[in-house]
């Protein structure tokens, strides 16, 4: 007669698994809905959903990236920077995030911070031309012409 508790345990387990799965599935559906909203340029509606998902750690990096991009699309550069800094703290080796932050800092006229971001990428990948050009542009915007000139000359293989 051990079959009754065994079956009861099985039922409880099944119910618990189903409940858990429902919760996860709910977040997944929410996430995909938010992505759809983002792709339809409905950033205002997508933002709170991504925020909620990020707080719940559901695909946190992706949710945060979408949040940062939504702020950016809305012209809210400061909040976009704040979010991408969070992403960078989660993924310190992600140079795409670093590049994005560089772009946002440039847009916010924070040229020194932008140049630093690109500089960190160049330190790891000296052949990254996009980062080198962006750093040179940021340095130019700060009036540091000679440093920018050196970068361009290096890129063109003309450094004396």
């Amino acid at each position, binding site marked *: 007669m051990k079959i009754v508790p065994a079956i009861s345990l099985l039922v409880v387990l099944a119910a618990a698994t189903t409940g858990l799965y429902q919760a996860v599935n709910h977040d997944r559906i929410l996430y995909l809905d938010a992505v759809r909203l983002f792709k339809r340029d409905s950033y205002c509606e997508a933002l709170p959903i991504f925020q909620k998902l990020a707080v719940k750690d559901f695909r946190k990096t992706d949710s945060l990236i979408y949040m940062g991009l939504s702020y950016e699309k809305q012209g809210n550069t400061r909040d976009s920077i704040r979010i991408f800094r969070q992403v960078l703290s989660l993924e310190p080796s992600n140079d795409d995030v670093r*590049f994005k932050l560089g772009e946002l800092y440039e847009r916010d006229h924070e040229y020194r911070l932008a140049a630093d971001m690109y500089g960190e990428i160049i330190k790891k990948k000296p052949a990254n031309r*996009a980062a080198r050009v962006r750093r040179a542009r940021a340095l130019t915007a700060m009036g540091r012409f000679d440093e920018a000139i050196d970068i361009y000359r290096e890129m063109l293989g003309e450094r004396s």
Partner: protein
Amino acid sequence: MRRIAVTAILILLICTVISGPRPSFAREKTAGGASSLIAPGSADEVPDWMARWELARILGYAKRYDESIAEYKKLLKEKPGLAKARIEMARFLFWSGRIPESLEVLESVPSAQQTDESLLLMADLYRARKAYARAGPIYRDHLRRHPGDHAARLRFAEMLSWQKQYDESLAEYRRILSALPDDVQVRRKYGLVLMWANRFDEAARELRRTLK
């Protein structure tokens, strides 16, 4: 006993149906992935000719004109159709005092590709070469389209005064002063032109205003 087992199996089946299809976690990883959205794209790739163009421009800003011109020449050898680069090069030639060369470069730009800015530069170059008859119509046309460009109007007013066209020159000065009544330097120049036009009382009055 059998009923219990059947009931349990039914509950399990119902749970399975309710929970829907099992998610594909492999798909989950890529569906709606955001990383690709921030990866630098092809627009961030800078070809050598563009890097050289930026280098030429920055050398110009840094007042290293000879180096800048050399880079522009290399660039234009590779991309002769870059009218904008040609115009920039003409400007740096002008800033470095190489007026005839600057004019030559600017005149080589097809008229359809001239901009308001390049035409004004051309007027300034004609003025510098004392080719006033060529500069005048360009200034007039520019000021008709940009009446608020006081710096260009001042250069035009000066040029008219050098040609002894005092009435027209003074009219241009008055237009500037109506917009910038507190500009002491413009008023002093206005006073000088009044003197050259033998209108001494007015000149004295205007010059006195600049000393208050």
